[in-house]
């Protein structure tokens, strides 16, 4: 047929030269991020309430001098576990945010949507308020771990409940999960309210600070508890990247591309529950990392999850270390809860991104 020979798009630019391939930029970005994280680690070890410098200690060691016990304690038992915990928590929050946004196909989704935060919050409040009512023997046994254990159990319980409610005939409805999450959040909030009402002054103070989040009190035992859970969840994330890319086209289209959608959903939800749960337990409620980090990255390297997820882990870790350095130095020797720092820094950045990139984000 003759019409097939008609030249279409004759007036448009014919050659495809000169478009920016964001994948290459994303690969280079990973190296820059590793450098940034290394820098933030040094900063995190260097600045604190006491004037201990890791460089001075290193110099003393290399010159064969004795390192004082207080220097050793500050560096090895206070700043170093705190730095490691900051990396783990920052990476989990940012990767969990990116996973949730990919799964819910919404750049404003947040790990809280799977019910982890509400459940963990309720668990923590129960631990703080009801802990005093436990038999002395049991309370003594759990001791310091009472609140973290209660928070972790609460987070998992609420995620599993939401997952059950939203899954029918082997298919998980993301929309149902979102709505059920709102209902469960309201319920957890109400029960928390009752407990807060019953709490005494000291418990109220504990509750308030838990809610604002902090890396203070980081110990090697906390690090060792959180590491396997967070590392397992982060190790799974790269295997979800292609599936999440397909999901950007919608569930049906992703299925036609060969994505096993149900597996992507369940694995993503469980790893977010594990990573966020562990992060919330060791550091309390730290906001904005999960939303701001993936957002910033998408603007520069694009939404391809194969590059977004590793970059988010690195940038989340760097940002949280930076926020932690601010939180413990700005009113030293006291500490500002880190959740306040991330909110004060994160919220305006977030608004600025929305204003600047409105044209692209609207759709």
């Amino acid at each position, binding site marked *: 047929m003759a019409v*097939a020979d008609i030249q279409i798009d004759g007036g448009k630019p014919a050659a495809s030269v000169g478009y920016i*391939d964001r994948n290459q930029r994303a690969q280079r970005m990973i190296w820059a991020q590793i450098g940034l994280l290394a820098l933030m680690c040094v900063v995190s070890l260097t600045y604190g309430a006491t004037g201990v410098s890791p460089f001075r200690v290193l110099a003393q060691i290399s010159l064969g001098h004795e390192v004082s016990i207080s220097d050793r304690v500050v560096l090895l038992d206070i700043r170093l576990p705190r730095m490691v915990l900051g990396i783990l928590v920052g990476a989990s929050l940012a990767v969990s945010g990116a996973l949730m946004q990919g799964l819910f196909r919404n750049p404003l989704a947040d790990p809280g949507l799977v019910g982890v935060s509400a459940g963990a919050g309720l668990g923590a409040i129960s631990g703080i308020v009801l802990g005093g009512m436990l038999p002395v023997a049991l309370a003594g046994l759990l001791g310091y771990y009472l609140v973290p254990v209660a928070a972790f159990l609460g987070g998992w319980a609420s995620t599993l409940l939401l997952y059950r409610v939203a899954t029918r005939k082997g298919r998980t409805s993301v929309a149902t999960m979102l709505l059920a999450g709102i209902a469960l959040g309201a319920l957890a909030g109400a029960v928390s309210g009752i407990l807060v009402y019953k709490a005494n002054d000291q418990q109220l103070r504990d509750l308030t600070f838990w809610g604002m989040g902090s890396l203070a009190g980081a110990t090697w035992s906390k690090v060792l508890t959180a590491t396997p859970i967070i590392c397992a969840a982060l190790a799974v994330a790269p295997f979800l990247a292609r599936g999440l890319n397909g999901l950007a086209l919608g569930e049906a289209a992703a299925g036609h591309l060969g994505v096993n959608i149900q597996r992507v959903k369940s694995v993503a939800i469980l790893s977010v529950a594990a990573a966020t749960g562990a992060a919330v337990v060791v550091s309390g409620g730290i906001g904005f990392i999960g939303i701001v980090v993936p957002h910033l990255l998408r603007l520069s390297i694009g939404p*391809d999850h194969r590059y977004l997820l590793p970059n988010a882990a690195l940038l989340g870790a760097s940002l949280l270390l930076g926020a932690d350095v601010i939180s413990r130095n700005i009113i030293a020797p006291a500490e500002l809860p880190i959740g306040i720092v991330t909110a004060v820094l994160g919220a305006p950045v977030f608004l600025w991104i929305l204003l600047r990139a409105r044209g692209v984000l609207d759709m």
Partner: protein
Amino acid sequence: MIDALNITVQLGRKEILHNVDFAAYPGQLTAIVGPNGSGKTTLLRALTGDVDHGGTIQMNGADVTDLPVWKLAALRGVLPQATPLAFPFTVIEVVRLGLMSGTSAQDDRLPERALARVGLAGYEGRYYQELSGGEQQRAQLARVLCQVWEPMLDGAPRWLYLDEPVAALDIAHQIQVMDIARDFAQAGGGVIAVMHDLNLTGLYADRVIIMKNGRVLAAGDTRDVLNSSTLSQAYDCRIDLDFRPAPDIAILHPAGVSLAPL
């Protein structure tokens, strides 16, 4: 071939498709036509497994429920009516998603070739969400073409499922997209397309299924099925065929509309 028997679809309490039999053959473009609400798109969605259905569907001799998703993705590409995108991907990034199933020819230049094929050369770095509806539809077609670039895989035909592929397109691009579909079929693949435009259907389809009220009203070779009485019955509107352009090409039009010379 695609062989579907006794397909029923129920949405809520209402049965949308009643015991529909459907067949499509490699080397052919099979069009599904019918009035609004007749079940065309529901039939296509049942064939692609996007809606729960009764009955059996075989593809190249195997029951589709026995095939894993990656195998289905290797054998068929599905173009929906419209594809909203969740994140600001560029056009080339969208088209590259078609290479995901891993069975396409692993050629780095393939996405660019597919874009050129649908007339979108030079659009690689543009944001998908900033394209017009028709451009988005062609970008999605390029993605689907990437997925099943070679119409045959290990001697078996691959399949293109197109849901109203030309609905948002201007006349030149309608011809371009239908040419792509016909080339795919002539190279050994099979195409199943839901169509609204009866004239394009008459020009391009080898086989036509006419749906009405969730049943098959007529099915067969295009020239046997597209006749005035069947079409008038299908659309509840008298439709005439005008053979003036050429003896083997008919222009379809509602009765009473006179075809004035241009």
